[in-house]
């Protein structure tokens, strides 16, 4: 079970002129484990959706054929299990056990077999709680594991995973990867999408690289593919293992203090913490899932009121407003001084097109239209979004949406930039571009705070790091 045959496949989403993916020919034999690579927007997620039979005819236009075990997956989904990038939207039921049981009920599995299979699936992914636990009480990593259990319980012949460890802390990501490794038996075919190749390689025995313009660029055992095409792939944006990036640390010593947090806490989301950000420095905020990093980012961004302690901006950042805390500033003043990038990019968007989204900030700060155009075009170009200027922000691929949300904050060049996971889902090329943009801002005397799980990003950019823990003390280095 689980053999895949794709012939001349192409898909164009309704409302788009460009093909999301085109001219793909691919055979995967039963039991193979494939890592599917390609630059951001190359159509990886679209191809996985097609394999799972989840591209309804009324949502776009198709070329060629897709078959799983010789049948159209749209007609028969029994064979395929899929875990999407965002676990929260794929949990259906209010209790964890019920959620795993959901698929079994749908397949008509006899009632007395359901709970043993649920328990087995939860055990295989190392799920730590009882099955009565509410799904709403899970951290991101736990949700990811639960979604995996929901797919595994169905014993699919073909398992499709779309960036299953995005947004997880390194320990959580390792747990999910181990769960996948343990769950694979000789009969299950795996197709995995993951930008960070090095971590994913132990799970796979074959690499397939999609060409952004269409077709398959390279296909074969990992060592052979990277030996033959390493340079070209790296230039294209693939994270070819073993290629490091040159760090971009600050050239000058940090300048004046911009903002400081003094024993700031918001129970139960964040334990008390101290922090200070200066002009011209890049601070990385690290810590496990659920430690309160995003909460801290919102507090620094003047978007949440602290429970205890205080956030104070200096005159350097706030001018005459320095006496009031940022959470009490009027919104236009706030937006011109502190730029915030939310963890979920879609939370950031307030307009209907990519262009307007980028133009909103500069327009609000009163720039003339020609200057607005110049700023927007520059960002579109650098972040490889130019072809999408008229697209709706919510139809972007995962990586594109992330870049757009970062770009909206960059557009007004605020003195302080607070970004939550700015690099997830990026290919190597867009990742480097983002690092450069942050480095330029920092070198121009802005303060940059980034919450991140990405060790490469910390190594490349951060001048200083701080770790948030659940315990009421913070370790700074």
């Amino acid at each position: 079970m689980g053999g895949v045959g794709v012939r001349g496949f192409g898909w164009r989403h309704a409302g788009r002129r460009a093909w999301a993916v085109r001219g793909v020919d691919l055979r995967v034999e039963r039991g193979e484990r494939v890592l599917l690579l390609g630059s951001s927007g190359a159509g990886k997620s679209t191809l996985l959706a097609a394999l799972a039979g989840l591209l309804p005819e009324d949502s776009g236009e198709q070329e060629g054929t897709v078959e799983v075990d010789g049948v159209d997956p749209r007609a028969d989904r029994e064979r395929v299990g899929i875990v999407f990038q965002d676990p929260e939207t794929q949990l259906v039921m209010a209790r964890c056990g019920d959620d795993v049981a959901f698929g079994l009920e749908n397949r008509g599995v006899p009632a007395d077999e359901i709970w043993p299979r649920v328990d087995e699936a939860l055990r295989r992914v190392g799920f730590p709680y009882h099955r009565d636990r509410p799904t709403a009480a899970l951290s991101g990593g736990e949700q990811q594991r639960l979604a995996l259990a929901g797919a595994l319980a169905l014993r699919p012949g073909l398992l499709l995973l779309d960036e299953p460890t995005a947004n997880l802390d390194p320990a959580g990501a390792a747990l999910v990867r181990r769960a996948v490794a343990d769950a694979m038996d000789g009969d299950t075919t795996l197709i995995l999408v993951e930008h960070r190749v090095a971590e994913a390689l132990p799970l796979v025995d074959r690499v397939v690289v999609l060409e952004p313009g269409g077709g398959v660029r390279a296909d074969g055992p990992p060592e052979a593919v990277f030996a033959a095409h390493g340079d070209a792939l790296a230039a294209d944006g693939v994270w070819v293992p073993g290629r490091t990036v040159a760090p971009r640390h600050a050239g000058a010593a940090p300048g004046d203090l911009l903002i400081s947090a003094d024993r700031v806490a918001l129970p139960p989301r964040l334990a008390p913490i101290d922090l200070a950000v200066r002009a011209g420095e890049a601070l990385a905020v690290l810590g496990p899932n659920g430690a309160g990093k995003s909460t801290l980012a919102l507090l620094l961004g003047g978007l949440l009121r602290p429970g205890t302690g205080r956030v104070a901006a200096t005159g350097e950042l706030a001018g005459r407003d320095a006496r009031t805390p940022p959470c009490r500033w009027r919104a236009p003043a706030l937006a011109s001084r502190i730029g915030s990038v939310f963890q979920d990019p879609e939370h950031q968007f307030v307009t209907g097109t990519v262009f307007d989204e980028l133009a909103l900030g500069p327009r609000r700060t009163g720039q003339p239209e020609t200057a607005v155009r110049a700023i927007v075009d520059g960002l579109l170009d650098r972040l490889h979004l130019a072809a999408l200027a008229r697209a709706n922000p919510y139809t972007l691929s995962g990586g594109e949406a992330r870049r757009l949300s970062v770009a909206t904050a960059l557009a007004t060049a605020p003195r302080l930039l607070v970004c939550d996971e700015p690099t997830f889902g990026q290919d190597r090329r867009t990742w480097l571009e983002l690092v450069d943009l942050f480095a330029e801002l920092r070198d121009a005397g802005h303060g940059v705070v980034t919450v991140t799980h990405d060790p490469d990003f910390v190594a490349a950019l951060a001048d200083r790091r701080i770790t948030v823990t659940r315990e009421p003390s913070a370790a700074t280095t």
Partner: protein
Amino acid sequence: MISIEPVATPGAPLARRNPVAKVAAALVFSFTLLATLDPVAPAIALGVELAVLPLFGIRYRVLARRAAPLLLGAVGIVATLVLFAADHSGRVLVDAGPVLITSGVLLTALGLALRMLAVALPGVIVFATTDPTDLADALIQNAKAPARFAIGALAAFRLVPLLGQEWQMISMARRARGVDAGRNPLARMRLFVSTAFALLVGAIRRGARLAVAMDARGFDAGTPRTVARRQRFRAADGLLIAGAAALAGAALAVSIALGAFRPLIG
């Protein structure tokens, strides 16, 4: 925070009854009471409701918090009636222009307020003790509700607390992008509308993705579904409904016997 979790101690004897039976009992009880406008029957019914509360495992303090909007509603009824009562019989107590308060008006107001409380409380009690998942299961298994619709609605209910958080995120995102309303009520109204619109758009988008995820796990594959959680309708559940009907009937009977009964129609 917005939440649809039950608030009762789960083991209580009546809280454990089949959800369909509980809803049916509440509806039977409430609708019998709707038939009259006098204060006697609702007063008796309220007494009954408060007396069975411990059997549902709800503490009085918790109920008071859950039912707080009801009390506001009762105040509203009295105020409106003072201005717009149909019947101004009885001794005149206050006469000041449009405000004409007579003993008849006060009696009617009392009756209406009691009636509103008595009719609404069973619903509050039932939904405070019922888990949405159990309700959907029971609707499918005991009331022959179509499974696809019950489960679809249930999946959407799971989004309630998430959408509550989403509301806050959208408000923050607007602020971060330089959009706020200050003290101007009109601007606040506009901001409210635009936030609500964004919430609705986000909710529909989530719904569409959720539907895809459900299909991916074979939701609409046409295979007959099995059930993992059995809900049974026992004799005790039938008794609960019968009991509710009998108690409501008894309250009406007492009011008729005392000559207080005033039918809604006629």
